[in-house]
């Protein structure tokens, strides 16, 4: 996850301070990263309340497992490892939500809207429906690449494969997403 250029303390330094007892510094990490994590989870689960619960859960886990953060480690891959595990636990308790759903319902009506805000909302709903049609591992990979601000090498370490393999999988996932989007938005017939 990117640290703002003018930030005085890096994410990793802040996390090290939290680990060493300055627990209140977690508040700064929350401020820097909760929106990005919320974006990741809201696309992954498609539900505002669940996404907020998961963001909260990630930061609780950061606190709980702070002693496992090593000096010299990068913060973003570590926090997204925690986020992945939180998501896995979430879906484990709600297995139906994770399943690939080729019949994911198309958004109710998509008549042209004169208001830009509504159009944007409609595109967002199409995209959410298209994501639901992807295999869970593709969906997760794509969202991690988009929201994690992780280098493909780091994603490869998280997933146990090479950076090259991650790039090829992201490309395939994008192609599938584009095709699914075309179907749910009515551009082409399934």
């Amino acid at each position, binding site marked *: 996850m990117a640290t703002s250029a003018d930030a005085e303390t890096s994410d990793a330094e802040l996390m090290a301070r939290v680990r060493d*007892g300055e*627990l*209140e510094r*977690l*508040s700064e990490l*929350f401020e820097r990263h*909760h*929106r990005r994590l*919320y*974006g990741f989870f*809201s*696309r992954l689960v*498609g*539900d*505002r309340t669940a*996404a*907020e619960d998961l*963001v*909260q859960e990630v*930061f*609780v886990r950061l*606190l709980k497992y702070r002693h496992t953060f090593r000096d010299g480690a990068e913060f973003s891959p570590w926090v997204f490892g925690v986020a992945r595990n939180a998501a896995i636990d979430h879906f484990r308790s709600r297995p139906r939500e994770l399943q690939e759903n080729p019949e994911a319902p198309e958004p109710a009506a998509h008549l042209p809207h004169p208001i830009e805000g509504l159009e*944007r909302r409609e*595109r*967002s709903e199409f*995209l*959410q429906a298209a994501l639901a049609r992807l295999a869970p591992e593709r969906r997760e990979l*794509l*969202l991690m*690449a*988009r*929201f994690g601000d992780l*280098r*493909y090498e780091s994603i490869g370490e998280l997933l146990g494969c090479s950076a*090259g393999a*991650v*790039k*090829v999988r*992201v*490309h*395939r996932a*994008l192609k599938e*997403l*584009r095709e699914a*989007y075309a179907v749910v938005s009515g551009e082409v017939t399934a």
Partner: protein
Amino acid sequence: MRCEEMAERIPELLGGELDPAAVAELRAHLATCPGCAAEAAAFERLWDELGAAAEGTPGPELRERFERRLAAEIARERRRVIPFLARRAAARGGRWWGLPATQLAALAATLVVGVFVGSELSRRRDASAMAALRDDVRSLRETVTLALLGESSASGRLRGVAYGREASEGDDRVAGALFEAMLADPDVNVRLAALDALKPRAARPEERPRLIAAVAHQDSPLVQLSLIDLLLESGAPAAQRDLEQLLDNPNLDPVVRGYLRDRIGRSL
């Protein structure tokens, strides 16, 4: 560049992993290949769209929930850590090796006074002499506590808190020094340990006003939360009333305000 290379290059482009020369090379290919250009444009649109959260932005209540949870975790951590720090400080205070010069001097003074006490005991075997000696010992403890609280190292000051803990209930000078340490010591752990040492005095009505004032003036939220705990756990209804008035203080840290509101709510 060949079209087959796009499978790796497009994710690199979207992920910002291409250097300017590679971006220029890719753009040059896209300018001459309509198929790849259309695919890249579609992917870039999807990538931008993906970047917006499905459910808008998180509401302010998410931060409030997090801050409340963090405050509770910090309070729990403090309850676990402070007794440990105090025990460790007390244990280390019992060894003379490795101590700084001021502490060695304090220990030497203890020894001298001890010898003096022994000789005095043998010489003056009456009750008034015993009372005088108790005063001497209390005075010594006070001296050692104040000397250690003036140490430059946090661990030295923690030892001072450990020495002063026993004396604080009956010795106003030691209590005053601990109160000062709780208010403004540069190290938060020393402040918290000092507050813990002051616990026996917290139930006294005359102590309450300055403890309440300390909540408002303290710059460490962690110490503020601990003060709130201490005051509420003293069981005095007046302490709760005074704390409720703090909720109207516009300068109160929002995290502390949330925690205070929760605690007061729970104890109603």
